[in-house]
């Protein structure tokens, strides 16, 4: 039963990229191909590119990804809790509430610290 479901997902995972890949391959056959230096230049509004492309980024991006990571992990934990809701007593529900409350504490900390501001 469960194995069959995953078999389907597996077949889908193999097949899903094929159609877009075909869409990319067709132009290879019928589209013109005349590359030249100017055409292949990096597009930067017509200016000559200056310096390295793989520039360094601000730490703000990392902060958002960090907060996201913590939230994501905790929320994934809550899914089994929600599925088992029928068999849980009120006490166990409150356990989950406490879990979310700790999560909210983290959010409040990040907020007060000003880490969620985009500057």
């Amino acid at each position, binding site marked *: 039963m469960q194995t069959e479901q995953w078999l389907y997902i597996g077949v889908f995972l193999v097949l899903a990229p094929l159609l877009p*890949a075909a869409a*990319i391959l067709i132009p290879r056959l019928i589209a013109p191909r005349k590359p030249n230096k100017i055409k292949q230049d990096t597009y930067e509004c017509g200016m000559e590119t200056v310096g390295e492309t793989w520039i360094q980024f601000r730490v703000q991006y990392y902060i958002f990804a960090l907060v996201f990571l913590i939230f994501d992990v905790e929320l994934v934990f809550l899914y089994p809790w929600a*599925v088992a809701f029928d068999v849980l007593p009120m006490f166990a529900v409150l356990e989950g509430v406490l879990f*979310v409350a700790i999560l909210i504490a983290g959010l409040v900390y990040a907020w007060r610290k000003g880490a969620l501001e985009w500057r």
Partner: protein
Amino acid sequence: MSDPVTIIANWLEGLLLGWGLSPLLATIILNAIGILVMAALLLVLDIFLVWVERKVVARFQDRLGPNRLGPYGLIQPIADVIKLLIKEDITPRGADRLVYNLAPILTLATVLLLWAVIPIMPNVVGTDLNVGILYLVAVGAIATLAIIMAGWSSNNKYALLGAFRTVAQMISYEVPMVIALLIPVLLARSMGVSDIVYSQEVWYILVAPAAALIFLISSIAEIGRAPFDLVEAESEIVAGFHIEYTGMKFGLFYAGELLHALTIGALFAALFLGGWSGPGVQAVPVLGVFYLLIKAFFIYWVIMWIKYSLPRIRIDHMLNFNWKFLTPLALVLLLATAIADKALEGSTTVVYILVMLGLNIVLVLGALALARGYASKERQRVGEPKPVARPPQPTVIEQS
């Protein structure tokens, strides 16, 4: 049984087994046929969506839209596709070829993968995965990755910058979305999308309207449509992460976005609007597809309506809106729903719905009141005269 899909599937399975194939191989071939048919239909629908999008935009902006090729311009999208197919494909110098080509493929493939768990009519669903909702989140994660790959491999500063902005936005809005998805799971006590559809005796939009709203908003941000389309802020970073893509590769990003919007509509319908359910669906299951598409296109229309009515939001406002409004609201909503659901165990359906609806309305109104208070303070702060830098006064030189 007037369910053609099941009948055809059974017939095909019998045929394949009759050829002496092993059951495993027969299942795989059957799955593959089903997937290819569905994916092909979706891609055809996708081409059609281009026309829908342009026609609806035109109507919102009091124009006619495509009307030259065929009746109502219906052939226009086909011409678009042919144009994309015969365009020259340019790979920028210094690009990381494999990753560069993989990114658009992944983008469209992830959207197709979402349909694996969406039930399209009673008893017909790609597969009724018992972790369906988390599967949707997981596929979304791969889509995020595809954007990083596109931006990084293009060897272009704007593309990388755009990709990072997009990803910051996508992962930020994924938090309220995951919370909002948790609420139907909690109400249905199952992660299977089919189970959620079946357990909606009353549409969940009545039981959890706030969760539905949060899901819609965060989904719009997730696909990067206006008002959250900073990623392609043409005036700043030209086109965002897909700046270097030409021809069909760009087309795949575009098609992915359109199909994703419709997929969001179908998901919204499945989770909050009862999916394929509607009058007479038990007798004639094929009607389910019809109902699902109507609901999905309605939500798609709402998304377009929002897109063409609202201006683009500034990036700091957008992130503030997510982290300081949507996420706390969603978390509180989750807590309130969980406690109320447990406390209302054994009460009648009417009481249950009324209490849940009231709770949602109170919470949303409270949150809006808080936001309004903050906004008026903020407006005052912005309105105050700022220290102005004066240009140095030119000293008047006396002519003697």
